[in-house]
């Protein structure tokens, strides 16, 4: 227990002093604030470029547009920044050899892996939840009458995808020594997932559903029971990534 809390403290200091917290928090909040803003402003901006009759044909923005912007921003830029921030959390230390002394003094490798991955998941969760609250507050403020459906499910799916990305990152960190190796590994996994989602039979189990169907969920087209299969496969993959990372890291030279 002592080991774990010391490791958490170290991760936190590293996260704070290397400006990672600053970057992650400001980018996420900027994305969160700009989601309702672009939703509200988009027809005006387009109206300046397009002929008037085309511009008038755009529907007035709704609460759905605001959430749509949020999901678009977070599933693309948000996750990309998350990968940039945590893509080198372990491989960086292996490159610089900063783990050699603690590991030879008896620090367990399993706890290194678990703490690093848990830390990235906690950071993702905290900042993500705060961003969701920001979007929620502004959406209520600008569109008080409109009610989106199944908001929690929709937001939960994107959160789960972030957790999955975090566990892919920790596995990539064990497999590769460089940041770009991890980055390519994560991109490769994403491409494989896209290919899987092309097959009709596997479509229901594809994780891409977690980030592509959020808007449909808001419109009430899917409910919790539609996602049972995906939730189970995602959880299995998250656990498998961790087990594999622990086993491989225990065998690897530092």
């Amino acid at each position, binding site marked *: 227990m002592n080991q774990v809390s010391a490791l958490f403290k170290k991760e936190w200091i590293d996260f704070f*002093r*290397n*400006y990672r917290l*600053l*970057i992650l928090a*400001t*980018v996420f*909040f*900027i994305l969160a*604030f*700009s989601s*309702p*803003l672009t939703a*509200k*402003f988009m027809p*005006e901006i387009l109206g300046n470029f397009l002929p008037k009759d085309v511009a008038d044909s755009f529907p007035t923005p709704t609460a759905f547009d605001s959430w749509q912007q949020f999901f678009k921003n977070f599933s693309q830029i948000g996750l990309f*920044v998350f990968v*940039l921030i945590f893509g080198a959390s372990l491989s960086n230390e292996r490159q610089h050899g900063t783990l050699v002394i603690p590991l030879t003094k008896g620090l367990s490798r399993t706890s290194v892996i678990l703490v690093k991955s848990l830390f990235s998941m906690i950071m993702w969760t905290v900042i993500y939840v705060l961003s969701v609250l920001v979007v929620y507050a*502004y959406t209520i*403020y600008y569109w008080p009458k409109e009610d989106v459906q199944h908001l929690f499910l929709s937001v939960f799916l994107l959160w789960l995808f972030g957790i999955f990305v975090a566990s892919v990152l920790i596995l990539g960190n064990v497999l590769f020594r460089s940041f770009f190796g991890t980055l390519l590994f994560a991109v490769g996994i994403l491409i494989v997932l896209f290919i899987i989602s092309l097959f009709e039979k596997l479509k229901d189990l594809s994780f891409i559903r977690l980030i592509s169907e959020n808007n449909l969920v808001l419109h009430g087209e899917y409910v919790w029971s539609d996602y049972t299969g995906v939730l189970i496969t995602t959880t299995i993959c998250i656990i498998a990534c961790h087990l594999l990372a622990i086993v491989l890291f225990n065998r690897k030279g530092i």
Partner: protein
Amino acid sequence: MDQVRELLPILIPLIILEWTLAIVALVHVIRHPHYRFGNRIMWILIVLFIQIIGPIVYFLFGRGERDDSY
């Protein structure tokens, strides 16, 4: 004008966030003379004039490796 006023509650936090990032990066550029590439003037311009992306690129890629004084 009315529209701007309507959007103020969302614009103000957005501008504050952007400038916090820019100013923290600017202070860091000025106080630490070593960069992985480029020179001080280049980084000051990048950090100040490319909003959001400039400071992020600086902290992730441009900042010197040896960073003794926090």
